[in-house]
């Protein structure tokens, strides 16, 4: 079942590669159909998912490398299913948004679909070796996307991104091999390995955990491992940051959740430090987002700030915190996707993305303005949006763990409010009078943005189903820690 989900975009990529490059319209249609198929299929999986079970569902496994014990095994639980959905949804959004480009479409959509497949693989792999392979596989299409189709400094950005991620992955690989070596039993199966690793001594667990943390931390990104962030986000092709920030940043947090299930002692030992890093990243990202004039850079840093909140949720090690972290991941995926979508659309129309470029945007392109305002408010975590639910849960979890110290989240909300409101004030500026422009959001873009906003507000107003979905897995994970 899951392997079918993975193969849909891959087949789509092959299909697109067969289409002549000059027929941009056809390529876009094929890409749209394929990604919508993947979305539909993942929605279908959602309907078949048993929300009351914390176990792995849709499990399938094939022999891959019997000598090492590596297997092709897939499966999802309540942590990964929302992320799968997020991936398929945001890919559709990217395809819908990238209909204005004309040249390089074949390469672009091919790489995008391969990327989607690789990300789905990361979220559904139940075997650490397979997980690692997919993890690295995401790099290849992204490298070419940035390097071939990116902005002016694309080469630098691509190199930065790949070097940082590879540097992290090396530690991850070493940690995985160490875990494979240290844990009795032969195989990379996540469940079995987790069982085995839990019995390891705390020091061994810590060694493995640090390796994994560096690998995951680069993707999240954790403070000090985020050097690639700004360049990659600002230089990538115009709508690729939707995937980068919306989905790929979640890969790190997701990996951390999996690692904490396997290495609970280590996680418990370092959770305090993780929380400190989370708070630093939160505030650091917030301050820098406030400092930017470049809207994309602003969203990039705000994304770092929000992932800091998610990390704080994971570091609480209790059910509320874990739930909050997963909801924050979903919410941030949606909101960051929406923000990057809007900024990309503005960049396409205004030719720039400086704070000055959006002065009086409301007069010229009211639809863009409305969606931008909604996205900014959602990123602040206004009640009624998904971010509020997430932050509330994390605050509850943090309060249970550290008491009033958890109030530091408030600072980050304050910071994000500062830059969001400043941006809104520029949008609404009436200093100059502008005429209404004819190229406001097109139908596809409107659809994509509306869907995202609808889900954000839907989760914010009716969080029940998602909470119920996540809660079982979160509670099960929290049991190992007892905070």
């Amino acid at each position, binding site marked *: 079942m899951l392997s079918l989900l993975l193969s849909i975009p891959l087949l789509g990529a092959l299909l697109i590669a067969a289409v002549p490059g000059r027929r941009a319209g056809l390529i876009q249609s094929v890409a749209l159909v394929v990604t919508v198929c993947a979305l539909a299929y993942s929605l279908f999986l959602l309907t078949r998912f048993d929300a009351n079970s914390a176990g792995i569902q849709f499990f399938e496994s094939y022999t891959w490398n019997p000598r090492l014990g590596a297997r092709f095994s897939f499966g999802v639980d309540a942590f990964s299913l929302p992320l799968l959905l997020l991936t398929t949804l945001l890919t559709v959004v990217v395809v819908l948004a990238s209909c204005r480009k004309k040249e390089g479409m074949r390469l672009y959509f091919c790489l995008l679909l391969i990327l989607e497949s690789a990300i789905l693989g990361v979220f559904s792999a139940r075997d650490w070796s397979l997980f690692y392979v997919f993890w690295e596989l995401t790099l290849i299409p992204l490298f070419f996307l940035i390097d071939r189709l990116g902005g002016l400094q694309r080469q*630098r950005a691509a190199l*930065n991104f790949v*070097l940082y991620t590879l540097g992290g992955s090396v530690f991850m690989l070493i940690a995985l091999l160490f875990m494979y070596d240290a844990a009795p039993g032969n195989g990379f199966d996540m469940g079995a390995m987790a069982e085995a690793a839990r019995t390891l001594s705390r020091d061994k667990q810590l060694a493995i955990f640090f390796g994994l943390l560096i690998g995951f931390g680069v993707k999240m990104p954790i403070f000090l491992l985020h*050097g690639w962030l700004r360049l990659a986000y600002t230089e990538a092709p115009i709508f690729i940051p939707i995937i980068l920030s919306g989905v790929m940043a979640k890969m790190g947090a997701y990996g951390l959740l999996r690692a904490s299930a396997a290495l609970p002692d280590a996680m418990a030992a370092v959770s305090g430090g993780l929380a400190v890093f989370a708070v630093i990243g939160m505030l650091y990202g917030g*301050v*820098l987002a406030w*400092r930017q004039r470049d809207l994309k850079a602003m969203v990039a840093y705000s994304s770092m700030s929000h992932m800091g909140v998610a990390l704080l949720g994971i570091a609480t090690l209790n059910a509320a915190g874990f739930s909050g972290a997963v909801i924050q991941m979903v919410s941030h995926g949606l909101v960051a996707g929406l923000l990057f979508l809007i900024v990309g659309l503005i960049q396409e129309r205004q030719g720039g993305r400086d704070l000055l470029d959006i002065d009086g945007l409301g007069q010229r392109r009211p639809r863009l303005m409305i969606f931008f305002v909604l996205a900014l408010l959602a990123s602040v975590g206004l009640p009624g949006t998904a971010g509020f639910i997430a932050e509330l849960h994390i605050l509850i979890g943090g309060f249970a763990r550290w008491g009033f110290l958890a109030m530091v989240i408030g600072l980050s909300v304050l910071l994000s409010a500062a830059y969001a409101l400043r941006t809104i004030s520029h949008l609404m500026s009436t200093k100059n009078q502008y005429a209404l422009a004819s190229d406001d959001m097109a139908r596809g873009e409107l659809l994509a943005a509306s869907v995202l906003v609808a889900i954000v507000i839907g989760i914010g107003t009716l969080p029940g189903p998602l909470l119920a979905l996540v809660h079982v897995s979160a509670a099960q994970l929290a049991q190992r820690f007892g905070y």
Partner: protein
Amino acid sequence: MSTELLHAVLHTASVLPLIPLVAAAGIAVQQLGSQPATSLAEADHREPAAARIALGATALVLILILLIDAAAIGSLIFGYHLPSSILLGTFFSSGDHVIPYVLTFDSLSLPVGTIVAFVALITLRFSRQYLHREAGFQRFFMVVCIFLSGMLFVVFSGNAVLAFIGWELAGVSSYLLIGFAYERHTATRNAQFAFVTNRIGDAGFMVAIAISLIYIGGVGWHEIGQHHEALISRLAALGFVTAALVKSAQWPFGAWIGRALEGPTPSSAIFYGAVMVHAGIFLLIRLEPLLLQVPDLMILLIFIGLVTAVLSWLTALTQTDIKSALLFATLSQTGLMLAACGFGFFRLALAHLCAHMLWRAYQFLRAPAILALSGRPAPPPAAWLSSRAWLHTAALQRFWIDSLSQIAVMRPFSQLARDARSLEERFIASISGAPQAPALIPSPAPLDPLIQSPGTVGRLLYALSNHLLALESRLALQGGDTQARRIFLLAGDYFRQAENLIEHPRYLIILVMLTFVVIL
């Protein structure tokens, strides 16, 4: 003429080495005091002043020397007493050591001094036309004045310290004149080469002075000559001989003079043709009593003199430009003088020296016009020489003396200087906080009115965010010039430097010695 009057005149006259120095200072003041010339006419108008000062001073020196000459000749004819040395006072004293300012007017210094002053005068007169409208006209006259002062000190000094002052003045001014056209790379490099090579001789001179001061108790020529202690005399003589050999460009120290022709022709005439190249021989003649005590050193002088004479003669035969040919002819003559000294014929050497100075000065000054005067190109080398290919090649290569001293002297010196400089740049400058070339740290973000916020919190936030931005810019791995890359490059640089240092024999030896020190 009463003796008192004669003494008073001699005392007054004995400031004569200082006269050209004053003239040089005068030219300098005149130059500094005036704005740079804006037009050719204005520059033309200024030239005569400098030339006049220099010429006047030189003429005054010559007249004074001629007066003393007359007095000396008079003393021979009329039989009155003329003091051979004039004590003007104490030059300086340190502890027990007293260095008097004393000049010698004897049968050695008077003829040489007369010729030096005369050659300087005609050379300056020649240069007044020759260098007309050249860049650095005034500078040339100033430096020649300094040189003349130095030579007069060497010739008339009553002790080794005064002679050494003159020696150094002459060395510095020759450095300045070789590098006269300092915008040309060859000129400055050759000047540096000549200067560095000359420092070897200077070191010998200084060692000799130190030995004289410490073991002999004085630096007067008389005291040095009268000391009879074999070892001390030998060491002192060795130092002086080294100095003399370098200054007179004898084998194997002669390489610098071949490169010294970069200077303007009049300076070649006065330095290498006529005056300075003879300073070494003059010093040896002056030290006759000392040298007579060390016969083996005199044998060495014969050997070096003959080698120089033969090699320079062969080289001169193959030269195709007039200045080089004259230069090597000069060297072969000085080689003969050296050999004469070695044989003990000091008077002969002196006569040779005086005659040669005049003749060469004339030849060098005539050299620029030689083609017009003779009307034919340089003759090919003699048949017997060109038929012996190896000898001919060696002569053309000037017997590889130049490249040898390049390896032996120049390269170690510049290596040492480079090491010292990198030490300075990398460590000492950064520790002492000396200003350096601006570092390539990304400049803090300029004030951005769009971002800045009012209020204390806003300002604090702005300041904080600027700091974070600076940190952020260091985290990104950038293709161009970044912190990480610079750190890597710097580390690589250091490693390479250390590697290079260790490869050098001198540092290797130091390392080995340090190891021994640690072990012992």
